[in-house]
């Protein structure tokens, strides 16, 4: 069975239909880049997958959990499907270590010393071992985003969702975050990432999904899709972002 399955999902905000029937499957270990114009529904789709938004129709199954069931265990789902946001969203009142330990203790029920060990390990993985006791406002945007990735990784999710996680960063800080992403990718994590970094999509993703006006307009192998777009919409989108 596929790790993620979306069957004809529809999402409205008020009268506006934002997702107009999306179907896709994601296999374990797959890395999918989601691209498309602003407002095409990329974030909404990701948010539906981890239950931050409710769909009006269709079915979503993630790692065996039926997200769209009325009594879905969303907290369990979110342990399996980690999410990192554009705006980092670290907890400003907690230092790096405690940001990471919080959910380990409350959700995964680790004791303090075990949680501390995990925190140290994931922070080392993103290259910030020396910042374990720093507060978020003492870190650069790139460092905060790396901590956010570490915080999500610490939960040992089976799937990670990344929503434009480099878009709020100064250009010189984008590279360090992408390198961390590459590291996560190389360990076999299943990833779905909304991105405007076309080179990253081409080189790291297995597959590209192009969203247009609430629908999946193209879906195919990364290189092929980006180098030889089949539709005029994707061609014009790529022209706009590359030039």
């Amino acid at each position: 069975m596929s790790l993620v399955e979306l069957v004809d999902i529809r999402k409205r905000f008020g009268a506006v239909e934002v997702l107009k029937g999306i179907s896709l499957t994601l296999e374990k270990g797959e890395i999918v880049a989601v691209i498309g114009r602003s407002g095409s529904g990329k974030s909404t789709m990701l948010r539906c997958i981890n239950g931050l938004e409710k769909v009006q129709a269709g079915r979503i199954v993630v790692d065996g959990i039926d997200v769209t069931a009325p009594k879905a265990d969303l907290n369990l789902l979110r342990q399996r499907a980690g999410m990192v946001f554009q705006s980092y969203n670290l907890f400003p009142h907690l230092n790096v270590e405690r940001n990471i330990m919080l959910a380990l203790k409350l959700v995964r029920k680790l004791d303090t010393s075990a949680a501390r060990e995990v925190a140290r390990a994931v922070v080392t993985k993103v290259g910030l071992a020396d910042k374990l006791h720093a507060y978020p406002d003492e870190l650069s945007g790139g460092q905060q985003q790396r901590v956010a990735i570490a915080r999500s990784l610490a939960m040992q999710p089976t799937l990670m969702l990344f929503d434009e996680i480099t878009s709020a960063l100064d250009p010189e800080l984008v590279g360090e975050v992408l390198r961390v992403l590459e590291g996560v990718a190389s360990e076999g994590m299943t990833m779905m990432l909304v991105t405007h970094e076309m080179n990253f999509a081409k080189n790291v993703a297995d597959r590209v999904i192009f969203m247009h006006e609430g629908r999946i307009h193209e879906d195919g192998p990364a290189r092929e899709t980006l180098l030889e777009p089949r539709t005029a919409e994707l061609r014009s989108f790529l022209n706009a972002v590359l030039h």
Partner: protein
Amino acid sequence: MIREFAGADIIYLIEAARWTLLLALTATVGGGLLGIVVAVLRVIPFRPLSWLAIAWINLIQGTPLLGQLFVFFFGLPLVGLSVDAWTAAALSLSIYASAFFGEIWRGSLQSVSQRQWEAGAALGLTYAQRLGHVVLPQAIRISIAPTVGFLVQLVKNTSLTALIGFVELTRASQIISGATFAPLPVYLTAAVIYFVICFSLSQLAHMLERRLHVAR
């Protein structure tokens, strides 16, 4: 018999200031508990209760505290409930404080970004865990400055209860001033005592903010 303003009078004023403090403290506790209810009613998504809370806030913030004091002190006996000056003072200051605390705390709670709720949710935290470990700690830090700011107002406003004859610092000053005909030193002493109380409160706030790592 006119006498000099003496050391004993200063002691008397300081003792009267205890009533000022006790009244402010009572209103803080009473108004604080009621303020939590007001804040909660304001944020829960059930309109009639929100309207009730809004009406409460507008009624209290839109009328003078002195008027509220008079309503309790002179009004309650008219309906057969006898109240002494302390009860009327404590009751009306608590009610007065509840409206302000309610608004301050609601504002602090709502000023924590929706994204913080989402970040907690994305990690699998339950609603209660998000509230207790992510949002409330931040809201409390945000609320320290305005809460203490209001406490300072509250301490000063206890002086209005002198007008219903409650002997706190201001009423005590009036009494001594009447006996010594030396209003200036008396009221200066009172002013210094008010200042010490209020200044200590704001220093306490600064200390708390530093200790709790308030987000910038």
